[in-house]
């Protein structure tokens, strides 16, 4: 809710076309039901005051009923209820039928986390209880990123028990069932961060199976799909993106043992090579004068032929054989990672990091049967 933790507004935050469809119906029903309730209360109060027992007088008329009146208050509520029904069907119909051309995102629920997969293979943990996650998942906790004013179809499935993916700001909710795909769609109308709740009780940490949706402008969403930017909220490149694969090569080749994160003056860390954070697009001063713009070509050249451009202030000690250790495909991925690296996003050499593809994974902790304080 945009970090705003103030009192709840009278009308809950609306952030999707479904929320805009929900609100008029909700207040329409509220109007009629409040009117009916106040009518009953007023009649009760009037009867209780006007016909309270007066001293010495307890004779009452023998009224057995009135078919006409009864018919009136049978048919009138029924007609009003049917307007709720028809309007409700209209809104529901809209909610359960995604537009045909909407791109599709998969969301997988499990005890107790939500995982999202984008069309080009990117993978993000939307949220959950960090205590139940592997180290890898913990580092990928982010948000479900959705584009502003563009429909996205979301297909859900559960790995274990029944969950429910509820987004109050979108006024939508869908049970996430094991063994069955169910779909809904969202078209956000407001930028910002919104709550995701698991609404179907799913065990010990049901209440921690919460996450975030981040709505961004459509062009930023497109960039996000390309793996640029940290929109998903975690400090790592988006799992499954080019940059993410490049990151794994970066670690496999031990690049970070020389290209450390920005150490800064006064620390005891003495890197042997310049930091690569934020290098893309900068003017790099070269030994012997002159500068070069750090574009894709510059980065590729510096990997396969380190002596081509030697940065001012550094010794040319980088081995020249990296070009033979990576294929051209992999090189493109490393370049994508270095493009992605922003100041403060590179892990220190001995930080726990994501193991590269194919490496033995950390086995997830066994499901915990009896909960405790998280």
């Amino acid at each position, binding site marked *: 809710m945009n970090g705003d933790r103030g009192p709840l507004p009278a009308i809950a935050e609306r952030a999707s076309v479904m929320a805009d469809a929900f609100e008029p119906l909700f207040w329409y029903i509220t109007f009629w039901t409040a009117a009916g309730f106040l009518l009953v209360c007023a009649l009760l109060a009037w009867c209780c005051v006007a016909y309270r027992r007066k001293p010495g007088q307890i004779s009452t008329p023998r009224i057995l009923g009135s078919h006409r009146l*009864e018919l009136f208050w049978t048919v009138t509520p029924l007609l009003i209820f049917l307007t709720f029904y028809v*309007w409700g069907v209209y809104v529901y119909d809209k909610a359960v039928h995604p537009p045909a051309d909407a791109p599709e995102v998969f969301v997988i629920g499990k005890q107790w986390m939500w995982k999202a997969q984008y069309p080009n293979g990117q993978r993000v943990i939307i949220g959950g209880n960090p205590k139940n996650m592997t180290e890898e998942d913990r580092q990928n906790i982010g948000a479900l990123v959705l584009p502003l004013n563009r429909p996205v179809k979301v297909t859900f499935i559960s790995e*274990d028990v029944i969950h429910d993916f509820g987004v109050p700001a979108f006024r939508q909710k869908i049970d996430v069932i094991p063994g069955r795909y169910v779909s809904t769609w969202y078209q956000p109308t407001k930028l910002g961060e919104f709550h995701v709740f698991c609404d179907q009780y799913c*065990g010990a940490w049901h209440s921690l199976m919460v996450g975030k949706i981040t709505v961004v402008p459509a062009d930023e969403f497109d960039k996000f799909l390309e793996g640029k930017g940290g929109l998903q909220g975690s400090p790592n490149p988006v799992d499954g993106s080019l940059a993410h694969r490049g990151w794994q090569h970066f670690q496999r080749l031990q690049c970070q043992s020389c290209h450390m994160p920005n150490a800064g003056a006064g620390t005891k860390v003495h890197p042997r090579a310049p930091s690569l954070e934020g290098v893309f697009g900068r003017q790099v001063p070269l030994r012997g004068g002159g500068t070069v713009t750090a574009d894709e070509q510059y980065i590729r050249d510096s990997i396969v032929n380190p002596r081509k451009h030697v940065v001012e202030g550094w010794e040319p000690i980088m081995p020249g054989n990296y070009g033979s250790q990576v294929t051209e495909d992999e090189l493109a991925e490393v370049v994508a990672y270095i493009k992605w690296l922003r100041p403060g996003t590179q892990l220190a050499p001995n930080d726990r990091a994501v193991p590269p593809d194919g490496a033995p994974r950390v086995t997830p902790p066994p499901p915990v049967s009896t*909960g405790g304080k998280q």
Partner: protein
Amino acid sequence: MSIVVADTPRTAPPPPEPVAPARNYLNETSGFWSWLLTVDHKRIGILYLVSITLFFVVGGIAAGLVRTNLLTPNGAILTEDQYNKAFTAHGVVMLFLFLIPSIPAVFGNFLVPIMIGAKDLAFPKLNLASWYVFMIGAAFMVWGLLSGGIDTGWTLYPPYSSRYSHASVTPGVFGVFITGFSSIMTGLNIMVTVHKMRAPGMTWGRLPLFIWAMYATSFIQLLGTPVVAITLVLLMVERVAGVGIFDPAIGGDPVLYQHLFWFYSHPAVYIMIVPGMGVVSEVLTCFSRKNIFGYKAVAWSSVGIAVVGFLVWAHHMFVAGISYYSALLFSFLTMLVAVPSAIKVFNWVATLYRGSITFQAPMMYTLAFLVLFTVGGVTGLFLATMGTDIHLHDTYFVVAHFHFVMVGGMVLAYLAGIHFWWPKMTGRMYSDFWSRTSATVIFVGFFLTFVPQFILGYHGMPRRYPNYPEEFQVYNVLSTAGASILGVGYLMPAVYLTLSLFFGPKAQANPWSATGLEWQVPSPPTVFNFEYLPVTVCGPYEYAIGVDQLGRGLPEPPGSGDDNPAAKVGPTLLPGPLPKETEVVG
């Protein structure tokens, strides 16, 4: 809109106050076994009353834990696991051990035979067996709750409950299964009794509306409970034997469980509320000195709810993966089932019209019922409408709606019934002041507890969440404050009703000047209820004429201005037959 009105003077003298017999059902025999082996429907009603009061306290303590824990966004006193067990204990105990047996087993047992002029229920020993079966089932449930607790929620959705939960689900489910048979036995007994044992003249059209409500309830108990029983058996088969029924990982279908479960559990909420509606019809007419407005409409709406109530179960599943077209159908049918409740409310209000209303405790509770049940009913429409349910489903909006109907409706109707029939059951009167005060306190506390939950639900706070975002805290604190007031309100009847057993003034046979047959026998009744064969001569609510169902006059009602000499003028005796019931119609 013509309402034909007849200002009819009283026609018959009140019967003399019967001399309280030395021996009644309470002191006829004494000792431990005289209670545990009794086949007297009244004593069995009392056994149920004591048992379910105990379970109400247990469920209430669990509710207190839940509300206290929700004071802070990350849980004030409990771990997540303890919280899950607390709300499950609250739900399971309150629903299966309090609400379902409350009015059918206590007042149904105690009153149905007397109200229709019978000596006992049709099957007295089956009746006693039902209590034992209930207690055995309750023992299993308590075992489940004490041996590790149940953490599934009262709805027990698989595959969580069948394959994932490590808590004591099996004994708990087995307990629910067993108590179901107790419910079936009570329903069968009441249904047969109403069919076969009515006193001469007690035609279907002269049955008190409480009997109609109990009859409709029995219908649901008989047809619905076997379905939940077999569902729970299937659940246990999957949990214990690993046979794939509901878990898709071993070939089952989790949505099938929801269909089966709600096929019983939606009608089950009508098992809970319809008897309450019966109580309300009795109390409202008595304290407004009026005939019920539209006897047939009120009676048949109970039956209508019982029948249509079986056809709406999937409205719990609009977002649970059912097909689009079945959702359309079930939403429509749900709109239909809302209509009988609306009819009842309007008929009750119309009953008060031109009445002579007094506000003793049963009436106070009933008026509170009318207000709270109306809120509960209309908020159900938000959930029956598919477009709004898609957001409000599984939020606190549902919790608040459900509690408005079940607590604001059913528990208040139950308390109204307790206060109405307490003199008949115990032979004692309770404090007028304190009983009215408690009704007021409960009403205020209830509103404060559950109105904030509607707001929370509208903003999307999910149910069963011990951890919640900070912006929801204010309303949770308000709700807990209301629950504290509500708790005090519940304690008050416990105290003054208990005190009345020892210090309360002796009750007359007909302290409220009511018309039903149960008021024409001494308080407390003798073992076989009637010393003579009661011959019913008229309908149940002839307050305007001032005759009971035996055609005798009514004593002076309480609160009619005893200090006013004019009120002491006795009723006028008019010779001749009673006016025909069809004389005055709308």
